[in-house]
């Protein structure tokens, strides 16, 4: 159990650190590498949450495909280290930072104030007898609320292809459209600003 806790703090540090690195590096290639780091960290977080399949997909799709895309585009542009990496304007910059900070404060405050509200609601609706037990702990919820085994890939697949099959098919259509649209965009000669 202590390994779980240590693991969480370690991963949180990695994810947030590499996330910050993405925006703090002025060279976009370094940013991309930090993003890979963050992606891998998030995949590890998924593993600690028992979502093995999602973790795998995260690695393949993000750390693999999407990042390759980013890096390739960066290479295509052949970018050097930028001189004006951050937006100018002291007032707007300050405003942006303030709004971001306020946003973070509000969300975190909201989460802390909610005190596991969602989980409690869920327990009530399930009618579990263990409502009095601490629901904030990993162990407590794992042992007592074993209603659906969320770390079972088979369950995930069953639900995906039965309850959510329409959304799944819609995603297929979306990806086809995106593939065609991307090719069309990349081939175009400057969109509406084209000089013929």
């Amino acid at each position, binding site marked *: 159990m202590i390994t779980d806790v240590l693991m969480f703090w370690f991963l949180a540090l990695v994810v947030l650190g590499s996330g910050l690195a993405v925006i703090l590096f002025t060279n976009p290639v370094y940013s991309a590498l930090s993003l890979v780091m963050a992606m891998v960290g998030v995949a590890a977080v998924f593993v600690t949450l028992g979502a093995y399949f999602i973790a795998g997909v995260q690695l393949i799709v993000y750390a693999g495909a999407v990042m390759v895309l980013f890096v390739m585009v960066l290479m295509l542009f052949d970018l050097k280290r930028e001189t004006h990496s951050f937006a100018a304007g002291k007032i*707007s910059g300050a405003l*942006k930072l303030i*709004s*971001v900070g*306020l*946003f973070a404060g*509000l*969300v975190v405050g*909201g989460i802390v104030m909610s005190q596991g509200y969602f989980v409690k609601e869920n327990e009530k609706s399930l009618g579990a007898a263990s409502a009095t037990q601490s629901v904030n702990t990993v162990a407590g919820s794992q042992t007592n609320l074993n209603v659906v085994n969320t770390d079972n890939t088979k369950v995930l697949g069953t639900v995906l292809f039965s309850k959510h099959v329409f959304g799944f098919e819609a995603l297929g259509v979306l990806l086809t459209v995106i593939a065609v649209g991307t090719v069309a965009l990349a081939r175009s000669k400057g969109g509406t600003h084209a000089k013929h």
Partner: protein
Amino acid sequence: MDHSLLMAILLLSPLVGFLINGIRYKNPTANLSGGIATAAVAISFISSLILVADLIGMPAEARKIHVSFFQWMAVDSFKINAAFYIDQISAIMILVITGVGSLIHLFSIGYMHHDKGVTKYFAYLNLFVFNMLILVLGDSLLTMFVGWEGVGLCSYLLIGFWFSDKEKAAAGMKAFITNRVGDAAFLLGMFVLFATFGTLNIQEMNALAPTTAEASWLGAITLGTLFLFIGATGKSAQIPLYVWLPDAMAGPTPVSALIHAATMVTAGVYMIVRLNPLFIVAPNTMMVIAIIGALTAVFAASIGITQWDIKKVLAYSTVSQLGYMFLAVGVGAFGAGMFHLMTHAFFKALMFLGSGSVIHAMHEEQDIRKMGGLKKYMPITHMTFFFGWVAIIGIPPFAGFFSKDEILWMSFHSPLGSPALWVLGAIGAAMTAFYMTRLMCLTFWGKSRVPKSVHPHESPTLMTIPLIVLGILSVVGGWVGIPEVIGHSLGDIPNLLEHWLHPVIKPIPNLTEAEHSMEWMLMGVSVSLATISAFIAYHFYVKSPETPEKIANSIKPLYNLISKKYLVDELYFGTIINPLINGSKRLWMFIDVNFIDKITYVISDLVRGGGGVVRALQTGNLQQYAMLIGIGIVIALSIIIMR
């Protein structure tokens, strides 16, 4: 066939014709456009013949074909259906409209053959027929009003058909605006009647009409019917709103025949006849109608004597004859009014078409001083015009005699009439005979005054056929209403029209038994008056053409006054129109420029200024937009959490 289907064909066939010709309005082929338009009206005529035949097959008291297509509007208890009904009165009207209408359409093919806008012309003409049928058949005053406005619009469009001529365009506007005055009164009349009866349905109102006469001038029915009558004076060109009709002769001549002689201008008479149970209980309204009618008959006839334009003469004649119709309905002789409406439609359409034929032959010349002796060039036109002439001046046994004589007799005999009205009517009849004979003499008889450059010729067959048909109708048209006194002495010939209309016409209260000797005597007086004045006119204009000029010179002030149409136009301009225009100009220069324009400028400046302020937000900077979204989320979240 099903009645609703027939009714739909009757109504929609001209509309379809209008749509077809309206879509291809630039097409210059007269034969095709005219063929479509004529066929459309002819189909209407056939279906109305079938409908009327069905009507005749019904028992006399139950003759009614009522078709309701859909509910047009429903406001609380006020419900109007798009419903139409044919009874004995509207049966006559639809036959006249579609029958005479198809003849005039046929005539137009020849008359408008060289005009570039011929397809547009036929489209308008068909639209007119459609609206006229709605007016005639509508089962409520509101439905009737739709047609009433529609025919006004078509009349405006057709009077101003050659709108590139400013004078003609102005004539169209004059007609439209004068009609608007009447239409406003018509609306007021509808309001009053609706407030009284709670319905605008004609049959319901007729059924609800009280049985006793309303003596007060301010009674609801008297007021409502008076307003309706003012509406009728606009549409049917009576004093004081007759001024537009003579100017309306600016339109093509077949239009004058169809709209401004045979059908539209009789709408006012028809409306009164259709509402006769209401009008008969308002004796004050009836008195006003009779007096206005008689005055108009004499007044317009006197102007007609002095006119030199062939169509103007006929126009004033139309106003005068419409006056007779109003005189008839004013003394309660609704049947006689309808009878004269019908015969007048025949012979006046005939004369207008005849004048069209003459104008066509004379290369657009309308001045009768430049005509004369046309008899030998245009025998068919002359012969048919001759029939029209004897019909209008009331020579037995032609159509006009029976209807006009019945009107004159009723104006004398009816308790609502008086000898004075008869005297006015008889004077009008004598004047009618005079100016029509004058027209005949100056146009067709006597020495030719045709300029050397013009070579008159008979019109093509397409134009003479309608003339011949209408000529025959002008002869026999009156035989359906032979008065009892003549029919009796000729061996019991029934008065078909009176029997036909009897179930839907309220009898005149307190009508005494007619004295036959009196009737014979008055008939003799009016016929001999007409004959004498016709002979005088013949003598003046054929035998000694210098006499009328001498007489005109000896009474120069009066003659000038009459030939300038009693200066009524000038009076209207001086007292109403010009002050109105000047006042409007002053309002425009003061109120509009100083206040209304300023207000709109201020508002537009405010909007522009506000836009300028808000525009600064649209920097085009993507990240700033994102920041604004972020701030919005922060505000929303803090509201949610702090709550």
